[in-house]
């Protein structure tokens, strides 16, 4: 893969001086309450805030403070990043820096027009005085946080081969971890670590390399445990996507949770959520890190609600399975193996005359961030009970999709999973198909998300009772919260605009 520094302006000094509005990387270990400094808010992926100003009792008083309108047609799907009073919000080829107090634009970066896929963008990473943006045509660009000017850019992968990038990079000390996407071509799946000061490649981890199966792309931001010094990533589905016979066996390390050493990119353990997937059910959904007890024993857990429809609890030091339970209709597994992994039923592989599958291709869940509230013992996920029909015949070949599938029916449901048992404690109808919103919980027992009908909603975490709503358009982002000047703000995207809510002064 061709790589190297694009000819561009001066490289920033290797030691980013931390002055003014620059991010201190240690902030990522213990984020301050005025920040949301990385995609998940912190390294755990819990998307849970300790802020206490907004409570179940007063949340009905939330009012609009400002709206930032991108003025673009595409739906916002990014998580806003908030550092030192500045909000960074992205869309494909675009990044805006906003004043976190007023929502006014500070600067706007526009990437040159390109012909790669423009399907969405998830957010940026920040380090020192640099902001890192991935692009549809698979560049990693470092922009000056002060002015939005390009400091350097490097190639992540060759978009002409069918790669693209949508993800928010993950910064771990002096390692910037960046994944790519690519589903229509038989491409090796890879995660790369770049030097955040100059974009030099540090290491590459391949999920697949030599065939007969490809894929396993890492297109969603991973998580990190500083004590174990392990970073956890969900990997994508294998290609050819629907042609199972072309790639017998489990197709490691596709559709897996992989635990890597961030210094070297070396694999420490793996757990395969969907072995030998033939339905596009990648396991890219957030691997959430939770400390607590599991059935009475102290546990360092990893929780993952997978697109294929199973909810897993693992011991994140070793990858040992603690719990496997479906969280909605699934019809593709014959049982669970000794590792806690579902055993795919060969009778449910795509066929010439079609097999009816639960879930459908969009999955029982998808990219939408879940949230964990340890006080309630709940893992809350935006789910979709669904059915689809899948076809494959040898004439479809062994390249890319290699088959056909269609959605039949789907219903968006927010589900609160008791993570000790996998039981669904409560379910909330989202009034439509799959929603686009992630979930944010806070320590006061309130949660924020979006339904499928154009509402931002606040629910009581304990039982899912609705406390507040605002019809801001389809929510495609995961909400975030921060406190500034003594006020707690909620940031949530509706349509192509970003909305900030707070309690009355």
């Amino acid at each position: 893969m061709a790589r190297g520094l694009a000819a561009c302006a001066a490289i920033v000094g290797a030691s980013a001086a931390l002055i003014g509005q620059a991010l201190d990387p240690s902030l990522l270990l213990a984020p301050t309450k005025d920040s949301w400094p990385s995609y998940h808010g912190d390294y755990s992926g819990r998307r849970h805030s300790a802020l206490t100003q907004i409570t179940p009792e007063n949340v009905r008083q939330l009012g609009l403070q400002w709206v930032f309108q991108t003025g673009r047609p595409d739906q916002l799907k990014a998580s806003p990043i908030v550092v030192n009073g500045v909000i960074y919000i992205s869309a494909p080829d675009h990044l805006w820096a906003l004043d976190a107090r007023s929502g006014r634009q500070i600067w706007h970066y526009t990437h040159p027009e390109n012909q790669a896929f423009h399907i969405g963008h998830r957010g940026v990473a920040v380090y020192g005085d640099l902001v890192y943006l991935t692009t549809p045509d698979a560049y990693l660009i470092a922009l000056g946080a002060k002015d939005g000017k390009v400091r350097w850019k490097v190639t992540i992968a060759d978009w002409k081969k069918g790669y693209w990038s949508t993800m928010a990079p993950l910064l771990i000390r002096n390692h910037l971890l960046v994944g790519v996407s690519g589903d229509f071509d038989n491409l090796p799946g890879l995660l790369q670590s770049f030097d955040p000061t100059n974009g030099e490649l540090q290491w590459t981890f391949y999920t697949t390399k030599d065939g007969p199966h490809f894929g396993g792309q890492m297109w969603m931001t991973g998580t990190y445990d500083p004590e174990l010094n392990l970073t956890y990533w969900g990997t994508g589905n294998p290609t050819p996507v629907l042609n199972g016979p072309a790639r017998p066996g489990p197709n490691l390390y596709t559709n897996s949770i992989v635990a890597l050493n961030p210094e070297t990119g070396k694999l420490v353990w793996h757990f395969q959520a969907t072995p030998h997937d033939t339905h596009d059910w990648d396991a890219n959904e957030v691997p959430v890190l939770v400390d607590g007890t599991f059935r009475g024993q102290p546990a360092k857990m990893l929780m993952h609600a997978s697109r294929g429809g199973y909810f897993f609890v693992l011991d994140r030091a070793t990858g040992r399975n603690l719990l496997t339970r479906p969280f909605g209709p699934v019809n593709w597994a014959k049982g669970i193996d000794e590792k806690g992994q579902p055993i795919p039923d060969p009778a449910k592989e795509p066929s010439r005359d079609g097999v009816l599958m639960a879930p459908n291709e969009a999955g029982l869940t998808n990219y939408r961030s879940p949230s964990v509230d340890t006080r309630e013992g709940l893992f809350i996920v935006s789910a979709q009970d669904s059915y689809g029909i899948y076809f494959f015949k040898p004439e479809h070949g062994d390249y890319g999709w290699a088959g056909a599938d269609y959605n039949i029916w789907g219903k968006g449901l927010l589900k609160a999973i008791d993570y000790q048992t996998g039981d669904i404690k409560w379910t909330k109808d989202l009034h439509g198909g799959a929603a686009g919103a992630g979930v944010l919980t806070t320590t006061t027992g309130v949660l924020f998300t979006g339904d499928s009908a154009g509402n931002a909603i606040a629910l009581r975490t304990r039982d899912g009772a609705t406390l507040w709503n605002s019809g801001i358009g389809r929510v495609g982002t995961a909400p975030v919260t921060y406190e500034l000047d003594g006020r707690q703000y909620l940031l949530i995207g509706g349509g192509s605009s970003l909305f900030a809510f707070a309690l009355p002064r």
Partner: protein
Amino acid sequence: MQRILTACLLWLAAAPVSGQTRAAAVSPGETLFQAQCGFCHGRDATGGASGPDLTDSELVAQDRNGDKLGPVIRTGRPERGMPGFPLSDPDLKSVIDFIHARKAAVDKNPGRRRRVTIADLSTGNADAGRAYFNGAGGCAACHSPTGDLASVGARYRGLGLLMRFLYPTAGNATQLPGEPRQNPVTVTVTLPTGETVTGPLVFRDEFTIALRDADGWFRSWPQSAVKVSVKDPVQAHADQLGKYTDDDVHNLFAYLQTLVK
């Protein structure tokens, strides 16, 4: 059904087999199509779960110089999750030319289609399908082969027929051009005065209920202020999805294919 864009949510189309390289010549229409439409409809327009196979679409087959496709591309089909694309006239033409070129290419190159043909689907047993229709499937409770389903096998064919009986509003490929599309769900709203209003559902969430009344007016109320009763004739189809075996599906398809009078 809202379209969900994920990095994997689509299927694509006939890509070259391994070892071959893609055709080098790229038309402006292809470039535009791939960037704007490719994610849902597949890079070469042969469609997917979130957008239909355009090379196999009735609308494309009937289109002459953009008369059918132009309005759909410009205004979208929001009820099916397709946004509008405000393209300039030349851009619109080049995209439509590309779609027609893809259709022509696929039509003359059957070896690489990622298509589902009627022959593919014809593995079931019509007698077993009739027994299921009248028995375990419970279809006969609402449907009659000599009444509402007379000629259903002529009105819908192949994949369209299959998807429609699984769930009547499933899939875009099943919609015939010009077919009126009205929400099959009807609601009756009882106002505090005791007055009732009945009509097809237009919109419903936790907070608002909206219908079109007998005079054709859109009307909405807060859910909290009225009593709502919903009649959803297609709910039984959703409930059945978890009960079918794949053989049931293929047998029922075979039976429905025989209803052509």
